[in-house]
């Protein structure tokens, strides 16, 4: 490992842990406003969706809205599987299966 790699990884580790620990460190010393607490439930789906949309619609950084975009097709298959089966393992397995079928066999 070079010195610049060491600095890079230390920096990444420090900011990542800092973000994850900041509120845990404050613990009892913060009190949240009721509207803020009400907004917490929306956080996980909002964040995850904001990551998913660009990842499947612009998989290589360019728009690809065609049926030949395996990222988009497998995301659609995964969403359908999730709604139908309500099972996380089935959703991921079917989604990944659809991707690799589309990518390598068709």
């Amino acid at each position, binding site marked *: 490992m070079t010195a610049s790699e060491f600095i890079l990884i230390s920096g990444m580790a420090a900011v990542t842990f800092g973000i994850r620990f900041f509120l845990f460190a404050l613990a009892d010393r913060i009190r*949240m406003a009721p509207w803020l607490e009400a907004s917490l439930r929306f956080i*996980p789906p*909002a964040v995850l969706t904001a990551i998913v949309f660009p990842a499947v619609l612009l998989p290589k950084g360019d728009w690809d809205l065609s049926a030949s975009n395996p990222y988009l097709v497998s995301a659609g298959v995964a969403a359908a599987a999730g709604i139908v089966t309500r099972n*996380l393992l089935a*959703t991921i397995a079917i989604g990944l299966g659809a991707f690799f079928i589309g990518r390598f066999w068709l």
Partner: protein
Amino acid sequence: MAVRNQEFLRGARDTLPLMLGALPFGMIYGAVAVASGLSPAAAVAMSAFVFAGSSQFIAVGLIASQTPPAIVVLTTLVVNLRHMLYSATLLPYLKHLHPAWRMALAFWLTDETFAVTVRRFQRGDGCRERHWYQFGSSVAMYLNWQLWSLVGLMLGNRIPQASDWGLDVAMPITFIGMIIPFVKTVPMMVCVLTAGAASLLTLGLPYKLGIIVSACAGIIAGLLAERSTKLAKGRATP
């Protein structure tokens, strides 16, 4: 003691499906890290000490395009800001714990462990040992991530084109599986659709800032939708 073991094992077990999603994603991280020119020791150290899949993946992409380390660290900060939202959600359930516990659970906080744990905590059975559930999920995710990123490194060394296989699809697919159980109400649907639309409108923002901006847009839309459905209900039943 028995309760602790049980919570730990349940946490690990409920994380298993997400470990399947992290398998190809860890492999693609390892393969892309090799292709980016990062040394194997540095790639392993990043998994061990940063332990944040999507930001590691983005970081090796930036390293490959000769981005200065300061910008890579800044991007990591922005991409991982969402974890502060996660810790805000978990805080009410963990604030009574010893600082060492809070530190450990903070270090291991990932999208996956958060999604699994928050559903356990919100069941609200008041179990005093339920942080062991999060601990179990954390350890399972951590070991899984170390293993598969190492396999990806070795694979990337032997088969350089492995980084073009498209294994990165595992992240959106896993996340889709994680989103669906949350979307049970109209305000939640509004939140998700707004966040998704906003993420496409904010693509021009640098350092992946669009993620945090879009999430905020989705949260506000969800809160507004909730307020308007409550008002409508209030009028219907005076």
